[in-house]
């Protein structure tokens, strides 16, 4: 009898534990989801500088030879390859670094670094290159005259000039022959509360995207905890993309 009671107690305990877990998941998961949605900016609300979108790349998790982020970007933004790499548009590319002294190799994605002080915006004669209040650097294709001075000024080779006619464009990523373009941080997704396509595509979890101005965001917490760096930090551009493990 005593044995039976013990069994019932254990059964009851397991039942309570599991149902609590299910209940917790059921309550918290939508909360997390809704929190994301709630954080998405309503379409009629102006972008503010209270938010600074940023990305942290953990090069330790970024696999050499993996280009899922590059492929995801191409699909998301309708970038097609021409067979002539020198004129292909590249919004994100994989770069492999080998330390000349030690031979240690590192792999990482390079994209527009969404500088707080972007040289491309400084040099653009018409103001077509601009930075949104939330830190995303974009090109207004309507007033870009195609002078390519921004490409000369960008320290990261992040910009591409469109050398020929483009077909099958995505409605959310308008492009045009004779204008310059670059990574938009998938602004159309970010405005809906989603992450950029490259971040979503990275199975390794090597990329974290979020609001660097929100101390509670994952990216802010990670940036507080780990040693990160800015590429060509000597230029003092205050980049929106930070790297860990280089």
């Amino acid at each position, binding site marked *: 009898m005593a044995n039976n009671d013990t069994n019932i107690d254990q059964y009851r305990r397991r039942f309570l534990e599991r149902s609590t877990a299910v209940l917790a998941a059921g309550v918290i998961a939508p909360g997390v989801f809704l929190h994301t949605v709630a954080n998405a900016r309503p379409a009629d609300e102006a972008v503010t500088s209270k938010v600074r979108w940023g990305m942290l790349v953990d090069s330790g998790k970024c696999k050499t030879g993996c280009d899922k982020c590059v492929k995801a970007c191409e699909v998301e933004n309708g970038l097609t390859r021409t067979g002539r790499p020198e004129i292909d548009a590249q919004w994100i590319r994989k770069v492999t670094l080998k330390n000349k002294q030690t031979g240690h190799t590192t792999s990482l994605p390079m994209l527009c670094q969404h500088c707080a002080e972007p040289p491309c915006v*400084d040099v653009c004669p018409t103001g077509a290159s601009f930075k949104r209040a939330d830190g995303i650097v974009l090109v207004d294709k309507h007033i*870009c005259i195609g*002078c390519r*001075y921004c490409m*000369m000024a960008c320290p990261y080779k992040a910009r591409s*000039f469109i050398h020929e*006619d483009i077909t099958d464009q995505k409605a959310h990523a308008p492009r045009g*022959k004779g204008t310059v373009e670059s990574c938009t941080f998938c602004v159309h997704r970010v405005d809906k509360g989603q992450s950029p396509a490259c971040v979503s595509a990275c199975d390794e979890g090597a990329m974290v995207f979020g609001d660097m101005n929100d101390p509670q965001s994952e990216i802010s917490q990670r940036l507080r905890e780990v040693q990160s760096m800015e*590429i*060509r930090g000597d230029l003092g551009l205050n980049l929106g993309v930070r790297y860990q493990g280089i």
Partner: protein
Amino acid sequence: MKYPVCREIEGKSSAYVALLVILGGLVALGLGAAIYMEHQGHHVTGMNNQIVWGMPHVFAVFLIVAASGALNVASISSVFGKVVYKPLAPLSGLLAIALLVGGLVVLVLDLGHPDRLIVAMTNYNFKSIFAWNIFLYNGFLAVVAVYLWMLMERRMNTYTKAAGMVAFVWRLILTTGTGSIFGFLVARQFYDAAIMAPMFIVMSFSFGLAVFILVLFVSFWGTGRPMGEVIVDRMRSLLSLFVLAVLFLVAIFHVTNLYATEHHGIESFILRDGGIYTMMFWVGYVFVGSVLPLLLLNFSGSSRSEVVAVSAGLVILGGLAMMYVIIIGGQAYPLVMFPGYEVVSDFSDGVVNVYRPSLPEILLGMGGVAFALTIVAFGVKVLRFLPLSLADKDIDPHYRPDTAGGATASGA
């Protein structure tokens, strides 16, 4: 000395007509190339996402730099009061306007959207040196036009010096702006240097004078107007001085870079390992464009106008080579993003970028040069830009008939 007299050229000779036909043909070819590039997109050029500025920019920047330099002869006359140069001032102003227009046409027709010129004229980002340059270029055309009016309209002559001064200061600021297009590029190893502005100013002295000399001499040979030793010798010594000055600043630029370890990569690329760029620098700019003209101008034992003209031609070739090295060579060297690392990617990271100039680009550039020369050829026919005589007795205030023979003998 008589008041310098400028007169229109007759412009009825077969040589003049042939010149216009050739220049017109080149302009038409350039225009055709621009339409082709605009219609097809820039994939028909040698430019790509690594070398974003190519041959059109080599020609355009050369023309713009030479434009401000071409005005120097007028400045020497109106601002510094050297009367020998007075008869040359109108041609100097005309050439300055023509070269600038030629350069700007090339620059605009190379844009990804030349049709949006009106956008560039109505949307300004005042932090951009490019936007500043739009004002500086247009202002230069206006200032020099007013200066020419003061100069050529007898009633307005009292204002010549003031207008000349404004034009002189404006041209210095303009070339500062042109040099700063490169000087302000913080990201690139070969640019990002304050010396770019003064170097471009001195280059403008040299290249502009070289173009002026060629245009002047060819006009005089073509029209059979007399030209004396004095003016040829002045041109000879002035060009010589300017070529030396450019060499000095180019040397300072490279020596300063060589002192800093971080610039050793780009310097060994340009000066030693860069293939075409190294050759363009040493053979094109240093030897053909500087040493050879200096030898010809100073040690050939001749002040003949042909020698000075050949030297001027060499300076122009050297200048184009220098522009190629600065504009293309500076982009060919890979951006240094990760010091101490070898960088590999499928987007040309860490490798020397390849550029093969295409025919349409070269035709566009040549078209700009031809357009500038067409303006000059047309200008000297319709207005009084070209002096009737540059004989010593007509321009030299110290001219004495009894010593002229001796001077000629020693100069020859």
